[in-house]
Protein backbone atom coordinates (compact mmCIF):
# COMPACT_ATOMS: atom_id res chain seq x y z
CA UNK A 1 0.00 0.00 0.00
CA UNK A 2 1.35 3.33 -0.89
CA UNK A 3 0.35 6.52 0.73
CA UNK A 4 -0.44 9.30 -1.63
CA UNK A 5 0.86 12.47 -0.22
CA UNK A 6 -0.85 15.60 -1.37
CA UNK A 7 1.30 18.65 -1.04
CA UNK A 8 -0.15 21.14 1.43
CA UNK A 9 -2.09 23.92 -0.23
CA UNK A 10 -0.03 27.06 -0.35
CA UNK A 11 -1.10 29.45 2.37
CA UNK A 12 -2.17 32.74 0.89
CA UNK A 13 -1.38 35.71 2.99
CA UNK A 14 -3.74 38.50 2.02
CA UNK A 15 -2.39 41.94 2.73
CA UNK A 16 -3.89 43.38 5.93
CA UNK A 17 -5.04 46.40 3.90
CA UNK A 18 -7.36 44.10 1.96
CA UNK A 19 -9.16 42.85 5.04
CA UNK A 20 -9.40 46.37 6.41
CA UNK A 21 -10.81 47.60 3.11
CA UNK A 22 -13.52 45.02 2.54
CA UNK A 23 -14.69 44.52 6.14
CA UNK A 24 -15.57 46.57 9.14
CA UNK A 25 -16.63 50.17 9.38
CA UNK A 26 -14.85 51.64 6.33
CA UNK A 27 -17.41 50.58 3.67
CA UNK A 28 -20.21 51.80 5.95
CA UNK A 29 -18.53 55.20 6.22
CA UNK A 30 -18.28 55.37 2.42
CA UNK A 31 -21.99 54.53 2.18
CA UNK A 32 -22.80 57.24 4.75
CA UNK A 33 -20.91 59.83 2.68
CA UNK A 34 -22.67 58.66 -0.50
CA UNK A 35 -26.14 58.75 1.11
CA UNK A 36 -25.60 62.14 2.74
CA UNK A 37 -24.44 63.63 -0.57
CA UNK A 38 -27.44 62.00 -2.23
CA UNK A 39 -29.81 63.73 0.23
CA UNK A 40 -28.09 67.09 -0.37
CA UNK A 41 -28.26 66.66 -4.16
CA UNK A 42 -31.71 65.07 -4.25
CA UNK A 43 -33.33 67.80 -2.18
CA UNK A 44 -31.82 70.62 -4.20
CA UNK A 45 -32.04 69.02 -7.69
CA UNK A 46 -34.04 71.94 -9.15
CA UNK A 47 -31.13 74.22 -8.28
CA UNK A 48 -28.33 72.42 -10.12
CA UNK A 49 -29.60 69.72 -12.48
CA UNK A 50 -28.96 70.82 -16.05
CA UNK A 51 -26.15 73.29 -15.29
CA UNK A 52 -22.57 72.03 -15.23
CA UNK A 53 -21.26 74.95 -13.19
CA UNK A 54 -24.20 74.71 -10.79
CA UNK A 55 -23.57 70.97 -10.35
CA UNK A 56 -19.93 71.63 -9.51
CA UNK A 57 -20.86 74.34 -7.01
CA UNK A 58 -23.47 72.14 -5.32
CA UNK A 59 -20.98 69.26 -5.00
CA UNK A 60 -18.38 71.61 -3.54
CA UNK A 61 -20.87 73.17 -1.10
CA UNK A 62 -21.73 69.68 0.17
CA UNK A 63 -18.26 69.63 1.79
CA UNK A 64 -19.70 71.77 4.58
CA UNK A 65 -21.58 68.66 5.68
CA UNK A 66 -19.25 65.93 4.43
CA UNK A 67 -16.02 67.15 6.04
CA UNK A 68 -17.41 66.92 9.62
CA UNK A 69 -19.04 63.61 8.73
CA UNK A 70 -15.74 62.20 7.42
CA UNK A 71 -13.89 63.46 10.50
CA UNK A 72 -16.46 61.88 12.81
CA UNK A 73 -16.27 58.58 10.93
CA UNK A 74 -12.49 58.67 11.28
CA UNK A 75 -12.82 59.47 14.98
CA UNK A 76 -14.95 56.36 15.50
CA UNK A 77 -12.50 54.22 13.57
CA UNK A 78 -9.64 55.64 15.65
CA UNK A 79 -11.20 54.35 18.86
CA UNK A 80 -11.48 50.82 17.52
CA UNK A 81 -8.35 49.27 19.08
CA UNK A 82 -9.32 50.66 22.46
CA UNK A 83 -12.84 49.19 22.18
CA UNK A 84 -11.41 45.82 21.12
CA UNK A 85 -8.79 46.04 23.85
CA UNK A 86 -6.12 45.11 21.33
CA UNK A 87 -3.84 48.07 21.99
CA UNK A 88 -1.36 46.02 24.03
CA UNK A 89 -1.40 43.25 21.47
CA UNK A 90 -0.53 45.76 18.75
CA UNK A 91 2.35 46.90 20.91
CA UNK A 92 3.99 43.50 20.33
CA UNK A 93 3.68 43.72 16.54
CA UNK A 94 6.75 43.92 14.34
CA UNK A 95 5.39 46.79 12.30
CA UNK A 96 5.91 50.29 13.62
CA UNK A 97 3.14 52.51 14.94
CA UNK A 98 2.92 54.51 11.70
CA UNK A 99 2.28 51.41 9.58
CA UNK A 100 -0.29 50.19 12.11
CA UNK A 101 -2.02 53.56 12.02
CA UNK A 102 -2.08 53.77 8.25
CA UNK A 103 -3.40 50.26 7.78
CA UNK A 104 -6.62 51.23 9.57
CA UNK A 105 -6.72 54.89 8.48
CA UNK A 106 -6.15 54.60 4.73
CA UNK A 107 -9.03 52.20 3.89
CA UNK A 108 -11.47 54.49 5.65
CA UNK A 109 -10.10 57.54 3.85
CA UNK A 110 -10.33 55.67 0.55
CA UNK A 111 -13.93 54.63 1.16
CA UNK A 112 -14.91 58.18 2.14
CA UNK A 113 -13.30 59.49 -1.05
CA UNK A 114 -14.91 56.71 -3.09
CA UNK A 115 -18.35 57.52 -1.66
CA UNK A 116 -17.92 61.15 -2.65
CA UNK A 117 -16.61 60.33 -6.13
CA UNK A 118 -19.53 57.97 -6.71
CA UNK A 119 -21.94 60.77 -5.75
CA UNK A 120 -20.07 63.13 -8.11
CA UNK A 121 -20.42 60.61 -10.94
CA UNK A 122 -24.14 60.30 -10.20
CA UNK A 123 -24.59 64.07 -10.19
CA UNK A 124 -22.75 64.48 -13.50
CA UNK A 125 -24.88 61.72 -15.04
CA UNK A 126 -28.01 63.41 -13.70
CA UNK A 127 -27.03 66.75 -15.22
CA UNK A 128 -25.94 65.38 -18.58
CA UNK A 129 -29.37 64.84 -20.25
CA UNK A 130 -30.59 68.28 -19.20
CA UNK A 131 -27.45 70.32 -19.94
CA UNK A 132 -27.99 72.98 -22.61
CA UNK A 133 -24.37 73.67 -23.51
CA UNK A 134 -21.09 74.18 -21.67
CA UNK A 135 -18.94 71.33 -20.29
CA UNK A 136 -18.36 69.65 -16.91
CA UNK A 137 -16.16 71.52 -14.46
CA UNK A 138 -13.81 69.19 -12.59
CA UNK A 139 -11.12 71.60 -11.38
CA UNK A 140 -12.37 71.60 -7.78
CA UNK A 141 -12.81 67.84 -7.59
CA UNK A 142 -9.21 66.74 -6.72
CA UNK A 143 -8.84 69.25 -3.88
CA UNK A 144 -12.31 68.44 -2.51
CA UNK A 145 -11.68 64.69 -2.56
CA UNK A 146 -8.30 65.07 -0.87
CA UNK A 147 -9.86 67.35 1.76
CA UNK A 148 -12.44 64.66 2.55
CA UNK A 149 -9.85 61.92 2.84
CA UNK A 150 -7.68 64.22 4.97
CA UNK A 151 -10.64 64.95 7.27
CA UNK A 152 -11.18 61.20 7.75
CA UNK A 153 -7.49 60.67 8.66
CA UNK A 154 -7.45 63.71 10.96
CA UNK A 155 -10.56 62.40 12.71
CA UNK A 156 -8.76 59.12 13.23
CA UNK A 157 -5.93 60.88 15.05
CA UNK A 158 -8.51 62.53 17.30
CA UNK A 159 -10.17 59.16 17.89
CA UNK A 160 -6.87 57.66 19.03
CA UNK A 161 -6.35 60.47 21.54
CA UNK A 162 -9.87 61.04 22.90
CA UNK A 163 -11.48 58.09 24.63
CA UNK A 164 -15.03 59.35 25.09
CA UNK A 165 -17.96 57.56 23.43
CA UNK A 166 -19.51 60.88 22.44
CA UNK A 167 -16.32 62.14 20.79
CA UNK A 168 -17.44 61.39 17.18
CA UNK A 169 -20.79 63.24 17.30
CA UNK A 170 -19.17 66.09 19.22
CA UNK A 171 -16.39 66.33 16.63
CA UNK A 172 -18.99 66.30 13.84
CA UNK A 173 -21.04 69.07 15.42
CA UNK A 174 -17.99 71.14 16.31
CA UNK A 175 -16.63 70.75 12.78
CA UNK A 176 -19.95 71.78 11.25
CA UNK A 177 -20.20 74.83 13.49
CA UNK A 178 -16.55 75.83 12.86
CA UNK A 179 -16.89 75.53 9.07
CA UNK A 180 -20.21 77.39 9.14
CA UNK A 181 -18.85 80.23 11.28
CA UNK A 182 -15.83 80.47 8.98
CA UNK A 183 -18.18 80.77 5.97
CA UNK A 184 -20.00 83.67 7.56
CA UNK A 185 -16.71 85.58 7.96
CA UNK A 186 -16.87 87.06 4.46
CA UNK A 187 -14.18 89.67 4.88
CA UNK A 188 -11.30 87.81 6.48
CA UNK A 189 -8.63 86.37 4.17
CA UNK A 190 -8.49 83.32 6.45
CA UNK A 191 -11.70 82.03 4.88
CA UNK A 192 -9.68 80.83 1.87
CA UNK A 193 -8.15 78.23 4.18
CA UNK A 194 -11.57 76.67 4.71
CA UNK A 195 -11.79 73.74 2.26
CA UNK A 196 -15.59 74.26 2.08
CA UNK A 197 -15.51 78.00 1.37
CA UNK A 198 -18.24 78.98 -1.10
CA UNK A 199 -17.36 79.17 -4.80
CA UNK A 200 -19.77 81.26 -6.87
CA UNK A 201 -21.31 79.61 -9.95
CA UNK A 202 -19.59 82.08 -12.28
CA UNK A 203 -16.06 81.54 -10.90
CA UNK A 204 -13.31 79.16 -11.97
CA UNK A 205 -9.97 78.67 -10.18
CA UNK A 206 -6.54 79.32 -11.66
CA UNK A 207 -4.55 76.15 -12.33
CA UNK A 208 -2.39 76.37 -9.19
CA UNK A 209 -5.23 76.93 -6.70
CA UNK A 210 -6.19 73.22 -6.35
CA UNK A 211 -2.50 72.34 -5.89
CA UNK A 212 -2.14 74.84 -3.05
CA UNK A 213 -5.41 73.67 -1.50
CA UNK A 214 -4.25 70.04 -1.61
CA UNK A 215 -0.90 71.06 -0.10
CA UNK A 216 -2.71 72.85 2.71
CA UNK A 217 -5.13 70.07 3.75
CA UNK A 218 -2.92 67.06 3.03
CA UNK A 219 0.17 68.71 4.56
CA UNK A 220 -1.61 69.59 7.75
CA UNK A 221 -3.01 66.10 8.21
CA UNK A 222 0.27 64.42 7.30
CA UNK A 223 1.95 66.52 9.99
CA UNK A 224 -0.67 65.46 12.54
CA UNK A 225 -0.25 61.78 11.62
CA UNK A 226 3.54 61.90 11.81
CA UNK A 227 3.46 63.78 15.12
CA UNK A 228 1.10 61.15 16.49
CA UNK A 229 2.51 57.91 15.14
CA UNK A 230 5.99 58.34 13.63
CA UNK A 231 9.08 57.02 15.40
CA UNK A 232 10.88 60.25 14.64
CA UNK A 233 8.25 62.83 15.42
CA UNK A 234 10.30 65.72 14.14
CA UNK A 235 9.57 64.36 10.66
CA UNK A 236 6.21 66.10 11.09
CA UNK A 237 7.95 69.42 10.59
CA UNK A 238 8.42 68.78 6.88
CA UNK A 239 4.72 68.41 5.90
CA UNK A 240 3.88 71.12 8.41
CA UNK A 241 6.22 73.51 6.63
CA UNK A 242 4.67 72.56 3.28
CA UNK A 243 1.17 73.12 4.69
CA UNK A 244 2.11 76.50 6.13
CA UNK A 245 3.65 77.54 2.82
CA UNK A 246 0.54 76.43 0.87
CA UNK A 247 -1.72 78.12 3.40
CA UNK A 248 0.29 81.33 3.19
CA UNK A 249 -0.05 81.27 -0.61
CA UNK A 250 -3.82 80.78 -0.34
CA UNK A 251 -4.24 83.60 2.18
CA UNK A 252 -2.00 86.14 0.46
CA UNK A 253 -3.50 85.39 -2.99
CA UNK A 254 -7.01 85.98 -1.58
CA UNK A 255 -9.50 86.36 -4.45
CA UNK A 256 -6.63 86.31 -6.93
CA UNK A 257 -6.91 82.75 -8.26
CA UNK A 258 -10.69 83.06 -8.69
CA UNK A 259 -11.64 84.52 -12.03
CA UNK A 260 -14.88 84.92 -13.93
CA UNK A 261 -15.73 81.89 -16.03
CA UNK A 262 -14.85 82.83 -19.65
CA UNK A 263 -18.00 81.03 -20.83
CA UNK A 264 -20.09 83.61 -18.95
CA UNK A 265 -18.88 86.34 -21.32
CA UNK A 266 -19.98 84.61 -24.54
CA UNK A 267 -23.48 84.39 -25.92
CA UNK A 268 -25.42 82.67 -28.68
CA UNK A 269 -27.74 84.88 -30.72
CA UNK A 270 -30.74 84.58 -33.00
CA UNK A 271 -30.44 87.59 -35.32
CA UNK A 272 -33.59 86.90 -37.32
CA UNK A 273 -35.92 88.49 -34.76
CA UNK A 274 -36.69 92.07 -33.70
CA UNK A 275 -35.09 92.66 -31.26
CA UNK A 276 -32.44 89.98 -31.66
CA UNK A 277 -32.31 87.41 -28.85
CA UNK A 278 -29.03 86.34 -27.23
CA UNK A 279 -28.64 83.62 -24.60
CA UNK A 280 -25.52 83.02 -22.52
CA UNK A 281 -23.22 80.40 -24.05
CA UNK A 282 -23.34 78.38 -20.81
CA UNK A 283 -26.87 77.26 -21.80
CA UNK A 284 -26.81 78.27 -25.47
CA UNK A 285 -28.99 75.35 -26.57
CA UNK A 286 -31.87 76.95 -24.68
CA UNK A 287 -32.04 79.61 -27.43
CA UNK A 288 -34.81 77.88 -29.48
CA UNK A 289 -37.01 77.66 -26.35
CA UNK A 290 -36.41 81.31 -25.49
CA UNK A 291 -37.04 82.38 -29.10
CA UNK A 292 -40.26 80.36 -29.12
CA UNK A 293 -41.38 81.86 -25.80
CA UNK A 294 -40.75 85.39 -27.11
CA UNK A 295 -42.04 84.70 -30.65
CA UNK A 296 -45.35 86.50 -30.09
CA UNK A 297 -43.49 89.57 -28.80
CA UNK A 298 -40.91 89.62 -31.59
CA UNK A 299 -43.50 88.90 -34.33
CA UNK A 300 -45.66 91.80 -33.20
CA UNK A 301 -42.67 94.12 -32.94
CA UNK A 302 -41.58 93.42 -36.52
CA UNK A 303 -41.18 96.75 -38.31
CA UNK A 304 -41.46 98.82 -35.14
CA UNK A 305 -38.70 101.46 -34.74
CA UNK A 306 -36.85 102.74 -31.66
CA UNK A 307 -36.39 99.26 -30.24
CA UNK A 308 -33.14 98.07 -28.65
CA UNK A 309 -31.01 96.00 -31.03
CA UNK A 310 -31.01 92.88 -28.90
CA UNK A 311 -31.75 91.14 -25.63
CA UNK A 312 -28.33 90.41 -24.13
CA UNK A 313 -27.40 87.78 -21.53
CA UNK A 314 -23.84 88.47 -20.38
CA UNK A 315 -22.60 89.37 -16.92
CA UNK A 316 -22.56 93.10 -16.23
CA UNK A 317 -24.68 95.98 -17.45
CA UNK A 318 -26.21 95.94 -20.98
CA UNK A 319 -24.80 98.32 -23.58
CA UNK A 320 -26.71 101.46 -24.64
CA UNK A 321 -28.59 99.79 -27.50
CA UNK A 322 -29.32 96.54 -25.63
CA UNK A 323 -31.64 95.36 -22.86
CA UNK A 324 -31.11 92.57 -20.36
CA UNK A 325 -32.77 89.29 -21.25
CA UNK A 326 -35.01 88.24 -18.32
CA UNK A 327 -32.91 86.20 -15.90
CA UNK A 328 -32.57 82.48 -16.62
CA UNK A 329 -30.11 81.89 -13.78
CA UNK A 330 -29.93 81.05 -10.94
CA UNK A 331 -31.36 77.74 -12.12
CA UNK A 332 -34.50 76.72 -10.29
CA UNK A 333 -36.80 79.64 -11.12
CA UNK A 334 -37.27 80.46 -14.81
CA UNK A 335 -35.23 77.46 -15.96
CA UNK A 336 -35.42 74.01 -14.37
CA UNK A 337 -33.74 70.94 -15.91
CA UNK A 338 -33.06 72.69 -19.19
CA UNK A 339 -36.63 73.92 -19.73
CA UNK A 340 -38.35 77.26 -19.35
CA UNK A 341 -40.79 76.78 -16.47
CA UNK A 342 -43.34 79.40 -17.54
CA UNK A 343 -42.96 80.76 -21.09
CA UNK A 344 -45.91 83.19 -20.71
CA UNK A 345 -44.48 84.74 -17.57
CA UNK A 346 -41.09 84.87 -19.26
CA UNK A 347 -42.49 86.74 -22.26
CA UNK A 348 -44.18 89.24 -19.94
CA UNK A 349 -40.85 89.78 -18.14
CA UNK A 350 -39.23 90.43 -21.52
CA UNK A 351 -41.81 93.13 -22.31
CA UNK A 352 -41.21 94.69 -18.89
CA UNK A 353 -37.48 94.68 -19.70
CA UNK A 354 -38.21 96.51 -22.97
CA UNK A 355 -40.30 99.13 -21.13
CA UNK A 356 -37.43 99.81 -18.68
CA UNK A 357 -39.62 101.61 -16.17
CA UNK A 358 -38.95 99.40 -13.12
CA UNK A 359 -36.90 102.16 -11.50
CA UNK A 360 -39.60 104.84 -11.76
CA UNK A 361 -40.88 105.83 -8.30
CA UNK A 362 -44.34 106.98 -9.36
CA UNK A 363 -45.84 106.70 -12.82
CA UNK A 364 -48.38 109.05 -14.32
CA UNK A 365 -51.70 107.21 -14.93
CA UNK A 366 -51.28 107.91 -18.65
CA UNK A 367 -47.96 106.07 -18.77
CA UNK A 368 -49.45 103.23 -16.74
CA UNK A 369 -52.32 102.90 -19.25
CA UNK A 370 -49.95 102.84 -22.23
CA UNK A 371 -47.65 100.28 -20.53
CA UNK A 372 -50.60 98.06 -19.65
CA UNK A 373 -52.01 98.22 -23.18
CA UNK A 374 -48.61 97.34 -24.69
CA UNK A 375 -48.16 94.43 -22.26
CA UNK A 376 -51.66 93.22 -23.12
CA UNK A 377 -50.90 93.40 -26.83
CA UNK A 378 -47.43 91.82 -26.74
CA UNK A 379 -47.47 89.36 -23.81
CA UNK A 380 -50.12 89.60 -21.09
CA UNK A 381 -49.03 88.54 -17.62
CA UNK A 382 -50.46 85.13 -16.57
CA UNK A 383 -51.77 86.91 -13.47
CA UNK A 384 -53.55 89.66 -15.46
CA UNK A 385 -57.02 88.12 -15.37
CA UNK A 386 -56.68 87.56 -11.64
CA UNK A 387 -55.77 91.22 -11.03
CA UNK A 388 -58.59 92.37 -13.30
CA UNK A 389 -61.07 90.18 -11.40
CA UNK A 390 -59.83 91.64 -8.09
CA UNK A 391 -60.28 95.18 -9.39
CA UNK A 392 -63.74 94.32 -10.73
CA UNK A 393 -64.78 93.40 -7.20
CA UNK A 394 -63.02 96.41 -5.66
CA UNK A 395 -64.25 99.92 -4.82
CA UNK A 396 -65.46 102.51 -7.34
CA UNK A 397 -61.97 103.89 -8.01
CA UNK A 398 -60.55 100.45 -8.82
CA UNK A 399 -63.48 99.63 -11.10
CA UNK A 400 -63.05 102.94 -12.97
CA UNK A 401 -59.35 102.24 -13.30
CA UNK A 402 -60.10 98.81 -14.76
CA UNK A 403 -62.54 100.34 -17.23
CA UNK A 404 -59.91 102.82 -18.41
CA UNK A 405 -57.35 100.04 -18.82
CA UNK A 406 -59.77 97.91 -20.82
CA UNK A 407 -60.64 100.85 -23.04
CA UNK A 408 -56.96 101.60 -23.72
CA UNK A 409 -56.25 97.93 -24.52
CA UNK A 410 -59.21 97.89 -26.92
CA UNK A 411 -58.03 101.10 -28.64
CA UNK A 412 -54.55 99.64 -29.26
CA UNK A 413 -56.03 96.40 -30.60
CA UNK A 414 -58.49 98.28 -32.83
CA UNK A 415 -55.75 100.26 -34.61
CA UNK A 416 -54.81 99.31 -38.16
CA UNK A 417 -51.47 97.52 -38.65
CA UNK A 418 -49.62 100.59 -39.92
CA UNK A 419 -51.19 102.95 -37.38
CA UNK A 420 -50.27 100.60 -34.52
CA UNK A 421 -46.72 100.25 -35.80
CA UNK A 422 -46.35 104.04 -35.81
CA UNK A 423 -47.86 104.34 -32.36
CA UNK A 424 -45.56 101.59 -30.99
CA UNK A 425 -42.55 103.27 -32.60
CA UNK A 426 -43.46 106.50 -30.82
CA UNK A 427 -44.10 104.56 -27.59
CA UNK A 428 -40.76 102.74 -27.64
CA UNK A 429 -38.97 106.05 -28.16
CA UNK A 430 -40.08 106.92 -24.60
CA UNK A 431 -39.21 103.69 -22.77
CA UNK A 432 -36.86 104.12 -19.85
CA UNK A 433 -38.27 107.59 -19.19
CA UNK A 434 -40.54 108.27 -16.23
CA UNK A 435 -41.78 111.52 -17.80
CA UNK A 436 -45.44 111.33 -18.85
CA UNK A 437 -45.40 114.09 -21.45
CA UNK A 438 -43.43 112.06 -23.97
CA UNK A 439 -45.61 108.95 -24.00
CA UNK A 440 -48.02 109.03 -26.96
CA UNK A 441 -51.69 109.22 -26.03
CA UNK A 442 -53.91 106.19 -26.42
Amino acid at each position, binding site marked *: MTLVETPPAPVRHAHPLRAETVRGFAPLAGAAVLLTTAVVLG*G*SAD*RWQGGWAETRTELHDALLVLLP*LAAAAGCRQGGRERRRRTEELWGTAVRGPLARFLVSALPLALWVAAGYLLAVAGALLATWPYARGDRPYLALLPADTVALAAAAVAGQVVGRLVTW*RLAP*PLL*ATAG*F*VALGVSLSARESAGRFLNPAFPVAVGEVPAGWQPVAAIGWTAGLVAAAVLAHAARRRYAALLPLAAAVAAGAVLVTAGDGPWRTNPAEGRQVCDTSTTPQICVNARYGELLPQVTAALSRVTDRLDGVRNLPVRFEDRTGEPRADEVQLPMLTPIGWSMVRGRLTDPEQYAWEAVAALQRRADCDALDPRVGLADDAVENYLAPSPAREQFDALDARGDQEERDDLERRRAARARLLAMGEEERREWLSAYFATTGSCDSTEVPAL
Partner: protein
Amino acid sequence: MNGVLLYARSRALPVTLAALAGTTAFAVWAADRMDTYLDPHRKLPLVALAPLLAAAVIGGSLHTASDELDRTAVRPWWPRRQAQLLGLTALAAALLPLAVLGDTPGFGPPAMIRNLLGCTGITAAAAAVLGARLSWLPAFGYVTAVYLASGGVRGRAVTVWAWPMQPGHEAGAWAAAGGAFLLGTVLYVVRGARPEGPRG
Protein backbone atom coordinates in the same frame (compact mmCIF):
# COMPACT_ATOMS: atom_id res chain seq x y z
CA MET B 1 -28.19 50.11 45.84
CA ASN B 2 -31.54 49.22 44.28
CA GLY B 3 -32.16 47.99 40.73
CA VAL B 4 -33.12 51.34 39.25
CA LEU B 5 -29.94 53.03 40.42
CA LEU B 6 -27.84 50.13 39.19
CA TYR B 7 -29.58 50.29 35.83
CA ALA B 8 -28.97 54.05 35.65
CA ARG B 9 -25.29 53.57 36.38
CA SER B 10 -24.91 50.74 33.90
CA ARG B 11 -26.31 53.02 31.16
CA ALA B 12 -23.95 55.88 32.13
CA LEU B 13 -26.94 58.07 32.98
CA PRO B 14 -25.05 60.50 35.26
CA VAL B 15 -22.68 61.36 32.40
CA THR B 16 -25.63 61.57 30.01
CA LEU B 17 -27.45 64.01 32.27
CA ALA B 18 -24.33 66.12 32.56
CA ALA B 19 -23.91 66.08 28.75
CA LEU B 20 -27.54 67.15 28.26
CA ALA B 21 -27.01 69.99 30.71
CA GLY B 22 -23.83 70.94 28.86
CA THR B 23 -25.69 70.89 25.52
CA THR B 24 -28.35 73.19 26.95
CA ALA B 25 -25.75 75.54 28.39
CA PHE B 26 -23.97 75.68 25.04
CA ALA B 27 -27.26 76.33 23.22
CA VAL B 28 -28.19 79.15 25.61
CA TRP B 29 -24.72 80.68 25.23
CA ALA B 30 -24.86 80.44 21.42
CA ALA B 31 -28.39 81.89 21.30
CA ASP B 32 -27.20 84.78 23.42
CA ARG B 33 -24.41 85.55 20.97
CA MET B 34 -26.63 85.37 17.87
CA ASP B 35 -28.03 88.57 16.45
CA THR B 36 -31.51 87.35 15.50
CA TYR B 37 -33.49 90.52 16.09
CA LEU B 38 -33.90 91.31 12.38
CA ASP B 39 -33.95 87.80 10.95
CA PRO B 40 -35.43 84.95 12.99
CA HIS B 41 -34.08 82.51 10.38
CA ARG B 42 -30.66 82.99 11.92
CA LYS B 43 -31.91 80.86 14.83
CA LEU B 44 -32.19 77.95 12.40
CA PRO B 45 -28.67 76.52 12.95
CA LEU B 46 -29.33 76.45 16.69
CA VAL B 47 -32.80 74.91 16.33
CA ALA B 48 -31.33 72.24 14.03
CA LEU B 49 -28.03 71.48 15.80
CA ALA B 50 -28.88 71.57 19.51
CA PRO B 51 -31.54 68.81 19.25
CA LEU B 52 -29.13 66.84 17.07
CA LEU B 53 -26.46 66.95 19.74
CA ALA B 54 -28.96 66.12 22.49
CA ALA B 55 -30.21 63.16 20.46
CA ALA B 56 -26.61 61.95 20.00
CA VAL B 57 -26.14 62.13 23.77
CA ILE B 58 -29.34 60.17 24.37
CA GLY B 59 -28.33 57.65 21.68
CA GLY B 60 -24.95 57.14 23.35
CA SER B 61 -26.67 56.26 26.64
CA LEU B 62 -28.56 53.40 24.98
CA HIS B 63 -25.34 51.40 24.88
CA THR B 64 -25.09 48.41 27.17
CA ALA B 65 -21.77 46.87 28.08
CA SER B 66 -23.31 43.58 29.21
CA ASP B 67 -25.64 42.69 26.40
CA GLU B 68 -25.35 38.90 26.66
CA LEU B 69 -25.79 39.00 30.42
CA ASP B 70 -28.82 41.26 30.07
CA ARG B 71 -30.53 38.72 27.86
CA THR B 72 -30.40 36.09 30.61
CA ALA B 73 -32.50 38.24 32.96
CA VAL B 74 -35.91 37.02 34.09
CA ARG B 75 -37.65 40.38 34.04
CA PRO B 76 -38.57 42.02 30.76
CA TRP B 77 -36.31 44.88 29.68
CA TRP B 78 -38.75 46.85 27.60
CA PRO B 79 -40.29 48.92 30.47
CA ARG B 80 -36.80 50.06 31.50
CA ARG B 81 -35.78 50.84 27.94
CA GLN B 82 -39.00 52.78 27.41
CA ALA B 83 -38.63 54.72 30.65
CA GLN B 84 -35.01 55.56 29.85
CA LEU B 85 -35.71 56.81 26.31
CA LEU B 86 -38.87 58.74 27.13
CA GLY B 87 -37.43 60.16 30.36
CA LEU B 88 -34.28 61.48 28.69
CA THR B 89 -36.30 62.87 25.76
CA ALA B 90 -38.70 64.61 28.13
CA LEU B 91 -35.80 66.09 30.07
CA ALA B 92 -34.11 67.38 26.90
CA ALA B 93 -37.47 68.71 25.66
CA ALA B 94 -37.78 70.65 28.90
CA LEU B 95 -34.21 71.98 28.81
CA LEU B 96 -33.46 72.87 25.16
CA PRO B 97 -36.33 75.37 24.61
CA LEU B 98 -34.65 77.54 27.26
CA ALA B 99 -32.28 78.63 24.49
CA VAL B 100 -35.04 79.98 22.24
CA LEU B 101 -37.45 81.47 24.75
CA GLY B 102 -38.87 84.88 23.99
CA ASP B 103 -40.12 86.44 20.81
CA THR B 104 -38.82 84.18 18.04
CA PRO B 105 -41.64 83.63 15.56
CA GLY B 106 -41.34 80.29 13.80
CA PHE B 107 -38.12 79.09 15.37
CA GLY B 108 -39.06 79.04 19.04
CA PRO B 109 -39.72 76.23 21.54
CA PRO B 110 -42.20 74.30 19.31
CA ALA B 111 -39.64 73.91 16.50
CA MET B 112 -36.95 72.95 19.02
CA ILE B 113 -39.14 70.25 20.61
CA ARG B 114 -40.25 68.92 17.22
CA ASN B 115 -36.65 68.63 16.04
CA LEU B 116 -35.66 66.92 19.28
CA LEU B 117 -38.43 64.34 18.82
CA GLY B 118 -37.46 63.73 15.19
CA CYS B 119 -33.71 63.47 15.87
CA THR B 120 -34.22 61.23 18.92
CA GLY B 121 -36.50 58.98 16.86
CA ILE B 122 -33.91 58.54 14.10
CA THR B 123 -31.17 58.00 16.69
CA ALA B 124 -33.16 55.39 18.63
CA ALA B 125 -33.98 53.55 15.40
CA ALA B 126 -30.30 53.69 14.44
CA ALA B 127 -29.35 52.30 17.88
CA ALA B 128 -31.61 49.31 17.21
CA VAL B 129 -30.25 48.77 13.69
CA LEU B 130 -26.60 49.91 13.80
CA GLY B 131 -25.78 49.87 17.50
CA ALA B 132 -25.79 52.62 20.13
CA ARG B 133 -22.20 53.75 19.51
CA LEU B 134 -22.97 54.62 15.90
CA SER B 135 -26.52 55.84 16.51
CA TRP B 136 -25.58 59.50 15.92
CA LEU B 137 -24.55 58.91 12.30
CA PRO B 138 -27.88 58.77 10.37
CA ALA B 139 -29.45 61.73 12.19
CA PHE B 140 -26.32 63.84 11.75
CA GLY B 141 -26.04 63.01 8.05
CA TYR B 142 -29.71 63.61 7.37
CA VAL B 143 -30.24 66.81 9.34
CA THR B 144 -27.09 68.54 8.07
CA ALA B 145 -27.76 67.41 4.49
CA VAL B 146 -31.30 68.77 4.66
CA TYR B 147 -29.88 71.97 6.12
CA LEU B 148 -27.92 72.46 2.89
CA ALA B 149 -30.52 71.11 0.49
CA SER B 150 -33.75 72.78 1.55
CA GLY B 151 -32.79 76.45 1.04
CA GLY B 152 -35.04 78.04 -1.58
CA VAL B 153 -36.89 74.80 -2.40
CA ARG B 154 -40.59 75.35 -3.07
CA GLY B 155 -43.59 73.03 -2.84
CA ARG B 156 -45.52 71.17 -0.19
CA ALA B 157 -43.30 68.10 -0.03
CA VAL B 158 -40.40 70.13 1.38
CA THR B 159 -42.33 70.74 4.61
CA VAL B 160 -42.27 66.98 5.17
CA TRP B 161 -38.80 65.85 4.07
CA ALA B 162 -37.08 69.00 5.34
CA TRP B 163 -38.89 68.87 8.68
CA PRO B 164 -35.90 70.06 10.76
CA MET B 165 -35.81 73.36 8.83
CA GLN B 166 -39.51 74.27 9.04
CA PRO B 167 -41.09 76.85 11.36
CA GLY B 168 -42.81 75.43 14.44
CA HIS B 169 -46.35 75.56 13.07
CA GLU B 170 -45.91 73.37 9.95
CA ALA B 171 -48.21 70.35 10.32
CA GLY B 172 -46.32 68.25 7.76
CA ALA B 173 -43.04 68.70 9.63
CA TRP B 174 -44.67 67.69 12.91
CA ALA B 175 -46.11 64.59 11.26
CA ALA B 176 -42.69 63.57 9.88
CA ALA B 177 -40.84 64.21 13.15
CA GLY B 178 -43.57 62.56 15.22
CA GLY B 179 -43.58 59.56 12.92
CA ALA B 180 -39.80 59.23 13.22
CA PHE B 181 -40.04 59.43 17.02
CA LEU B 182 -42.79 56.84 17.20
CA LEU B 183 -40.99 54.43 14.89
CA GLY B 184 -37.64 54.86 16.63
CA THR B 185 -39.13 54.45 20.10
CA VAL B 186 -41.04 51.30 19.18
CA LEU B 187 -38.04 49.81 17.41
CA TYR B 188 -35.68 50.48 20.31
CA VAL B 189 -38.10 49.51 23.06
CA VAL B 190 -38.96 46.21 21.36
CA ARG B 191 -35.51 45.19 20.13
CA GLY B 192 -33.07 47.12 22.29
CA ALA B 193 -29.74 48.40 21.01
CA ARG B 194 -28.03 46.13 18.51
CA PRO B 195 -25.30 44.12 20.23
CA GLU B 196 -21.94 45.48 19.07
CA GLY B 197 -19.54 42.96 20.52
CA PRO B 198 -15.85 43.52 21.05
CA ARG B 199 -15.16 43.96 17.34
CA GLY B 200 -17.50 46.95 16.91
